[in-house]
Each structure stands twice: as C-alpha cells, then as structure tokens.
C-alpha cells in the first residue's frame, strides 16, 4: 500500500464539450470529485459513457478543461502518470477466453506498469477482494456473467487506483454479490475517488456518498442521495409513475424539471 498521493480534488471538469461527427455527447459539463464513492446517474444517451471515457483518458474533449488526479492530460508524462493510478471498467469489456482469472488480472497489472515484485500479491489481493479466490485458476470462458464482471472489477482495482471508474459494474451480479460489491466500493472510497455510472438508482442510494445526475450532456443535480430523495417530495400530487422509492421519485422529479426548462 502506498500513501495517498492526491490531496483534495481528484477530478476537476469545467465546461466540458465532446462532439462526435454528427452528435454532441457532452455540452458544457462541470464536475468536481473528491475521495469517496460518487454515483453518476442519467437516462440512456445522457453522456455518461462518454464522460467515463474522457476521465479514463481515452477520449479527447472537444473543448473545456479536464484535470485528473491533479494533472492536465495534455502532456505525455502526465498522461502516463495518471494512467498508472487509474482503474477503469467499461460497460462492455472484452476478455481473452483462454486466460485464467489470475492471468487476466496479472496482464493488466503489468500494463499498468506496477513493479513486478509487487504484482503476485496485488493480483491475489484483488481477486480475493472480489470474491473469486476459489476460481482464480479457472479459464474465463468457464465463468458466468457475474463472475466475469467481478474479474473485470479485479483488474480495475489491482493497482490500488486513486481514481476508479466503473461503468454499470453491477450488471449481472446477484443481490448478495451486489451487497458485497457495495462494501468493497465503500472500502476503496475511503482514500480513492470512485465514480460509478449506473442506471440502478438503488445502488446509488446505498453505496454512494454523493450523486451527480447528468442529462443532455450537462450536470443537472449534484448532492447526497438523501438530497436527491428530498427533491422528489415536492413533486406535484397526482403525478403518476414517478417511481416506487423516494430516491427514484427524486430522480424522476429532477429529470422532469430539467426537461421542462
């Protein structure tokens, strides 16, 4: 374990715009994240995956400022330093079916340029933390969807990242695994910044210390899960289909208010 190397803000995004050829994914988004577990909510097409890719240093902003772990991503050395301290799990991740779980995680430990002496222990610890220790030497093609997802999480956390980006990490996990996973997130979020993009509002309510809601490429809400739930209390009576739990009602209310603008 190394001492935390980031003081204060892990992610600082100002007026971020990302445009593809025929579509604008992010339209002036602002976001500041410190250590802790942050939820990123939003409807499909809101720009969550694009934001994750920008923070994961693989998509370039069209304009705006992005600082990750205190670095501007412009120069080669800073980029490399940031990438060593990054954990990333995309929503759809490919894997090599003939690799064992251990080889898969080891491979990414190597790609993240961890010192080779520390790799074996770190790999084992990561596999243990996601609860795959008994399957560590099984080939990936023999694992179920939920186990694959956990192997993906293991590669993301193997280098004790200072910034952990997880896109829909609970897809395919059963309820018990989701509970374990939330514990893991909270443990990592003590020192690191964890950003979880999800459409499962209840995951956010339980695991996250803060929630950002993205709609139409902008941040439309930022606060604690309780504050999001409170936003739903003032919804006009008689409004139907606004959700079953307080936080779902809050989510719907904020979105509807934003659309009405």
């Amino acid at each position, binding site marked *: 374990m190394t001492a935390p190397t980031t003081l204060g803000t892990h992610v600082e995004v100002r007026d971020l715009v990302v445009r593809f050829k025929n579509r604008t994914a992010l339209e002036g988004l602002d976001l500041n994240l410190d250590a802790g577990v942050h939820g990123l909510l939003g409807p499909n097409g809101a720009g969550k*995956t694009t934001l994750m890719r920008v923070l994961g240093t693989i998509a370039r902003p069209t304009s705006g400022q992005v600082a990750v772990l205190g670095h501007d991503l412009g120069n080669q050395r800073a980029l490399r330093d940031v*990438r060593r301290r990054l954990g990333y799990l995309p929503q759809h991740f490919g*894997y090599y079916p003939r*690799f064992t779980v251990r080889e898969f995680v080891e*491979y990414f430990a190597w790609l993240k340029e961890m010192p080779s002496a520390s790799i074996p222990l770190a790999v084992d610890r990561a596999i243990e933390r996601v609860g795959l220790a008994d399957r*560590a030497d099984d080939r990936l093609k023999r694992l179920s969807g939920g186990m694959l997802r956990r192997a993906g999480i293991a590669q993301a956390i193997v280098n004790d990242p200072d910034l952990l980006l997880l896109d829909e990490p609970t897809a395919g996990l059963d309820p018990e695994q989701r509970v374990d996973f939330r514990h893991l997130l909270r443990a990592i979020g*003590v020192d690191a910044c964890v950003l979880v993009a999800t459409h499962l509002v209840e995951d956010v309510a339980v695991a996250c210390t803060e929630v950002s809601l993205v709609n139409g490429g902008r941040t439309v809400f930022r606060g604690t899960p309780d504050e999001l739930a409170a936003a739903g209390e003032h919804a006009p009576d008689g409004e139907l289909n606004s959700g079953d739990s307080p936080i779902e009602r809050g989510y719907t209310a904020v979105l509807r208010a934003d659309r009405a603008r």
Partner: protein
Amino acid sequence: MTWHVARPTILAYVDGDAAEADAWSIEAHVTDCERCRTELAAAAADDPALAADLAASRTALLAGLPPQGRIRRGSPARGLRILLASGPAARGPWLLATLMVLALAIGLDLASSGAGLLGSTAPVLVLLAPLLPVLGVAASYGSGLDDAHEIIATTAAGGLRLLLIRTTAVLAVTVPATIAAGLVTGLAWSATWLVPGLALTTLTLLGGTVVGVTRAAALVGGGWALVVAVDVISETTIALLTGPATPAWLAVFGLSAAALVLRRAAFNHLPTSIRPHSEA
C-alpha cells in the same frame, strides 16, 4: 467534515509530542477525514525513524503470512508468456495463413524452379513474403479485433509500447519462417524480401497513427498488391522488387520508424471512430 487538525498539532503528533487527549482526538478524526489523513501521511513521510519502523513491521508481517498457496511467483518469463498469449483472437488464423502462404510460395517456386510465375520474373516468395508481417500487425493490434482494447487503452503501457511488443512478436514469427522458406526454395538468404517486409511493417504502424492500424494495413497491403500486379502484367521485374532497390527500402524503413517515434502520441487515445456501443 467541518474541522481539520491544525498543522502544529499534526507535526507534534508525528514527533510523538502531542498531548494524550490530542493524540486520541487526531486518531479518531483521521479515520473519517481524508484530508487530514493525507496531511498526516505527508508530514510523517520523511521521518527516517518512522520509515525504519514501518519497514520492519512490514517485513515481520510478510514473514508471518501463511504460505501463499496457488499464488504464482512473478518472473520475467511468466510476464512475457502472458503478454504474448494475450491479444486478439485473430492471431491464430493469421499464424495459419502465414504458414499456408509460405507453403504455397515454396510450392510454386519449386515448381517453376525460381523463375517466377505468370510472366513475372521475381520468385513468388519475394512477392508474398513482405505482406505477412503487415497482416500480422493488423491482426494483433487492430482495435476492432482486440476484445479488451478499451481497458488496454487506459493503461500506461497500452499505447505504442504494447504495439511494438506485439509487432516484435509478429516479426519473430515471420522473419525466421520466411528465411526458412527461402532456404527451402534455394533462394538462400536475401535482403530482397526481408527489408521490404520491415519497411512495410513500419509504414503500417506510421499509417496507424493517422487512420488506425487496421485501415493502414489495408492501404499498405493494397499498395504492395498493386506493385505486384504491375510486375506480373508488365512481364518485366520492376525495380522495386530487385536487389538494387534494397537501400531505398532501408531508407523507407528508417524514415517511417523515425516518424513513428515522433507521432507516438497518436496511440494515446481511442480512434475517434469508436463511439459508445450504447449509451447507458
């Protein structure tokens, strides 16, 4: 968190001079407060006595761990094996194709006694061998083919470094195989078909910085096929395929390798053509 530990108190705590009540209060506070924890760690970072203490307890802790069971020892050999085993599934078919093309070239050259085919005077091996590493590079790095490319792109070693390692692996297969094929057909070792292969490989990588490795391989391969077609149709061996052209191919190799180093930053990001599969 509404309050933070004052700097003098942190320094006193690190030196072991803090009052007992203060020390308790700090310890309770830092379990919840990242900022003070980081500050405390930074203040204690350059205390040699503390560092020695930590190193000693770490050693003791590691010595006392239970046997590691199935943990694999890290070794360069294991690292290399995993590195080479990883990569797109397209590499298996490419390896097969390489062997088949070489076998075909050997067969045709033996049948025509090295005199060429279809009016071309160049041996078939000279025409086909330079394409093999180009296809290999496309098969082992093209981002559409590597399943894990999106995670790999976020890692420190995932750009040019990984590409060069995979290219080296491709060359480590094609170069000996081509030389062996040359020996079998009796052409013996000749730079005529090795150097163009290297030059086309670096050209592909350089093109990859602009249009992506897969497309660059298609362009370079297409260009080479055009040269071969002209050669076959014109019924004279064109200069590009003969021994005297070797220095020119060497120059292409050197220049494209240098340009590749200058343009290495292009491998830092996903190609812009790759969009989210489905925004969720």
